[in-house]
């Protein structure tokens, strides 16, 4: 399995469009942070969430395309399965690849942020940036799991990407918050939007109880991966 993960990570990192886009996102991120730090360092707390969400979307989407869509379109997946790799192993390795590649990108952003805080002498207000950046990373770890059900279950990477964006950009949050105002839910004080990855993570972080983390991991990592493998197991793969 390590072979696939390493081969695939190197493949995505050789993709010029990914490298160029990542560089642009990094520059835009650094420029924005620098402007905020030079104007009003105290407002870092206000913009850190927005910066983190922007970074996760602008880097998370190309990584998603590189790992999942390219794999389907190139038919490399068929070659790997035809070589005797189990579908379970393939699905798990693709999930791991996504996490590793995104973590690499976030590590670079964190490092650049650290340098900017150090250079401008604003280390005292640095905490929210790193907290929100890695919270968004954790949230993405959950979002990808849910999107993979569509990617492998329906063999549709485009719709999988739509689900991923819907979850990662909190678009579904608006929808589910609206549903929570339906009298039945409102009367029973049920907030449906709490089932979303980012909200689950917020609950876990604010309560500090490991059970919330476990629940989020079960709902958005374990169950989606099991479901993805089961649905993918009997699928016809075209050449």
């Amino acid at each position, binding site marked *: 399995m390590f*072979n*696939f993960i*390493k*081969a*695939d990570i*190197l*493949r995505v990192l*050789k*993709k*010029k*469009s990914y490298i160029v886009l990542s560089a642009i996102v990094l520059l835009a991120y650094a420029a924005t942070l620098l402007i905020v730090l030079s104007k009003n360092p105290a407002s870092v707390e206000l913009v850190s969430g927005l910066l983190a969400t922007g970074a996760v979307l602008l880097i998370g989407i190309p990584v998603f395309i590189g790992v999942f869509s*390219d794999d389907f379109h*190139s*038919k*490399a997946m*068929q*070659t*790997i*399965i*035809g*070589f*005797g790799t*189990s579908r379970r192993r393939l699905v798990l390795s693709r999930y791991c690849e996504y996490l590793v590649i995104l973590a690499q990108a976030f590590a670079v952003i964190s490092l650049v942020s650290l340098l900017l805080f150090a250079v401008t002498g604003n280390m005292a207000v640095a905490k929210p940036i790193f907290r929100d950046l890695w919270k968004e990373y954790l949230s993405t770890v959950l979002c990808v799991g849910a999107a993979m059900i569509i990617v492998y279950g329906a063999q549709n990477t485009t719709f999988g990407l739509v689900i991923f964006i819907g979850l990662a950009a909190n678009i579904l949050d608006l929808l589910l918050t609206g549903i929570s105002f339906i009298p039945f839910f409102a009367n029973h004080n049920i907030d449906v939007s709490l089932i979303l990855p980012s909200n689950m993570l917020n609950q876990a972080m604010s309560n500090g109880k490991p059970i919330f983390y476990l629940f989020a991991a079960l709902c958005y990592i374990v169950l989606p991966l099991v479901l993805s493998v089961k649905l993918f197991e*009997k699928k*016809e*793969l075209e*050449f």
Partner: protein
Amino acid sequence: MSEAFIQLKGIAKSYGKNEVLKGVDMTVNQGDIYGLIGKNGSGKTTLFKVILGLSPYQAGEMSLFGAANEAQNRANRKRIGFFIGANFFGYLSGRENLDYYRRVKGIRDKSEIDRVLGIVGLDEKQAKSPAARYSLGQKQRLGIANALLGKPELLIFDEPTNGLDPQGIHDIRTLIQKINAEEGTTIIVSSHILSELEHTAHRFGIVHDGVIKREITREEMNRRNKTVRIDIADSNSDKAKAVLEQNGIEVYNIARKDSSLEEFYFELVGGEENV
């Protein structure tokens, strides 16, 4: 007796009500060049996909390299190289694509890439170009190079000459014979063009309407022929006929044999040595 590398018994597969494979029996022995012949849509590609685990089947038994169950079949698929269709990342060069598959297959020796590029005749300049810019022939060659990575014991080629020019067709045919003769690799190759496999394969499987109608060796095919052909100069045909008849030998047919278009083509361009 040589080992059966692939043994299929009663393999059946359908898409809804459409039965694509209706109880396929097939045996491919070690050292064979097995020609799978059938018209388009007869089930050749589906059969390959079943063998490679890309397509589930509803009934029958399959054994790869003598495996007793599906888990062993899956493990034994590592001994198979195959080319069914283009399977490359367009933004990577041919060499980078091969390097990707080398890593995936767990092959440590990096020189393996140069070996397979050399076999299929892709030069360094071509190998460094992005795969998206490859011509159809170059894609076929790259696909075959990928199949050859790691010297598999069994190769599966699905219509490898599809869309190739005469030189390309000849090169692939020669390549198949060369790999089989020099490395003892067992090869299954499919085609809907009979002449393409006639002189390449040792054994033939005739697939039609979802079943293999007959498996036959080339020797058996030859034994079926009860007439003899003698090639002589056109100007001597009358004399030859007279001599044969004087000796009580009945002549069934006298026909002028024209050069095949392929022979004529190679006479003109002088290329049979490109593999």
